[in-house]
């Protein structure tokens, strides 16, 4: 436990996040039910996406989606350190600002970004044309400024990384977007939105509480323009048919995210003046 970090200002060895007094009244317990109050089950929370904000980078993006805020920058193609590779390499790093989640993430003790980086790399590689970049690397850095669940970070991360890579002008097969669907079994709470089906309730873009209450969830990375899936990350327990329904729903929603992504890329391209000069020639 005694990791002495001489690169940072020292902190007390142990500190604990605030513990709050127990809740009184049943008001908050109702909110934990599977049904939604603020939107329908097939409705994702609005996404805000903007490219080109980090002008030190070759390409960049910033996304706000549900409880997640991520800044992403892309540097490259850069010369790659030996060994020589005939293909380009994708280096991707997810980093959480220490204040980006509850409880605080102490630097060095935070290991979660590593598997997230791996999953995100896998989801992005099929969208890239790395064979065009011998001896080079593309460096993608994601900085999470605010987060609720890791699944939502992955989903928004994939979308914003795609936006930043496209903004950098790096060749891609298509734009990748992420989408999450959770499945909860119907509890007895009289939810008016529940479908007549007796099985389970599928929730698109689940909030933190909804995800916690769910039996299974799936994150789908896809390229809607090509109708292809780049990564499927399923956790929990569900029947085959139900799992297929969940994937189906995620893919449907991916198309909407793709529209948002396309719109912000076109706006970003206009700001960079892409196409303006070629039109005059």
């Amino acid at each position, binding site marked *: 436990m005694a990791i002495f*970090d001489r*690169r*940072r*200002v*020292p*902190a*007390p060895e*142990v*500190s*604990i*996040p*605030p*513990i*709050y*007094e127990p*809740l009184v009244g049943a008001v908050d317990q109702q909110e934990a039910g599977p049904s939604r109050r603020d939107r329908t089950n097939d409705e994702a929370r*609005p996404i*805000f996406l*903007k490219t*080109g*904000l*980090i*002008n*030190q*980078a070759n390409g960049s993006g*910033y996304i*706000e989606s549900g*409880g997640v*805020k991520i*800044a*992403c*920058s892309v*540097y490259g193609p850069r010369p790659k350190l030996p060994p020589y590779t005939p293909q380009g390499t994708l280096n991707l*790093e997810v*980093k959480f*600002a*220490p*204040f*980006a*989640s*509850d*409880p*605080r993430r102490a*630097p*060095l003790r935070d290991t979660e970004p590593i598997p997230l980086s791996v999953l995100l790399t896998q989801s992005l590689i099929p969208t890239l044309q790395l064979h065009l970049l011998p001896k080079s690397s593309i*460096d993608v*850095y*994601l*900085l999470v*400024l*605010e*987060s609720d669940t890791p699944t939502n970070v992955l989903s928004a991360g994939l979308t914003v990384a795609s936006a930043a890579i496209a903004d950098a002008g790096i060749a891609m097969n298509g734009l990748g977007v992420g989408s999450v669907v959770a499945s909860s079994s119907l509890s007895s709470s009289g939810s008016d939105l529940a479908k007549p089906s007796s099985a389970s309730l599928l929730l698109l873009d689940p909030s933190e509480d909804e995800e916690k209450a769910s039996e299974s969830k799936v994150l789908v990375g896809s390229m809607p323009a090509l109708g292809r899936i780049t990564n499927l990350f399923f956790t929990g327990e569900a029947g085959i048919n139900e799992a297929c329904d969940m994937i189906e729903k995620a893919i449907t929603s991916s198309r909407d995210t793709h529209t948002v992504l396309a719109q912000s890329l076109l706006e970003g391209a206009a*700001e*960079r*003046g892409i196409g303006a000069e070629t039109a005059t020639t």
Partner: protein
Amino acid sequence: MAAVASSSSSSSAAGPSHISDQLTSASSTAPSSASAEVFKRLHPSQYLSRFLGKGYRPDGRKVGGWRDVSINVGSISTAHGSSLVRMGDTTIVCGIKAEIAEPTAQSPNEGFVVPNIDLPALCSPNFKPGPPGDEAQTYSNWLNDLLVSSRTIPPESLLISSAKAAWVIYIDVVCINYDGNAFDAAVLAVMAALKNTRLPTARYDEETGRTICSRTETHPLTLGRIPLSCSFGIFESTHLLPDPTAYETPLLPTTITVALDSEDVGVTCLIRQEGLGGTVGKSGERVLGEAWNAAEARVRELRAVLDESVDA
């Protein structure tokens, strides 16, 4: 809880938070001609010298000018207090998280303040991923010195119960876009975030040995002096350049940082000079004096922006 104070409040509550607004105002400079870009890369010193000779900086301000500053507070819902500062294109986010720890035996009535500045690989092509580099470490130490020496957060004010429990205030500063002078922007961001911070009211329970926080009652931090910093570089022993950009910084072997306190009387909290100081025909002290005067005027400006953003 997404209450956002802003100098220019525009979007509705449902809209994106002000981080995006702030970032959006990033100036996208028109692409200059290819040969100018090549000259800029090959002969940076001559490039800068030509601009200064005409009385301007490469980014269009006057030689003695500062970049525009804007501050937004409270956009990060996972933090107890937060701010986003833009100084020119340099963009800094600061988040404050409070945790609870046992005071040390030497100082049983004091809490802890832990400031750190991170310059991640995301923010500049010249930084590598991994633990904080030299520049980030230096800035973290400067920031710590500044906060301790000016007693910005008096450690006694963080006590919950003597020798049992006290607040630890984690101040984490992250740079998102590094276009030079990150330290001035970081100090401003820290002060804005501290003013924005609200802690839950905490009570130490002797029986259970635990500290319990209220869900409804909160209070702001007790703040001491609020220092603000101004940095300069000296180019070829001739020009004193305030608020250097990332492009100018490597060309400025001497740097001066002056941190000043309270509005009316210029009380210094920190002066730091690296390099020889002095310019042709002027002694080091005179140049330092010039820097000080320029800093006094700048700090008044910064303080106005700070007060406006936090009170809004």
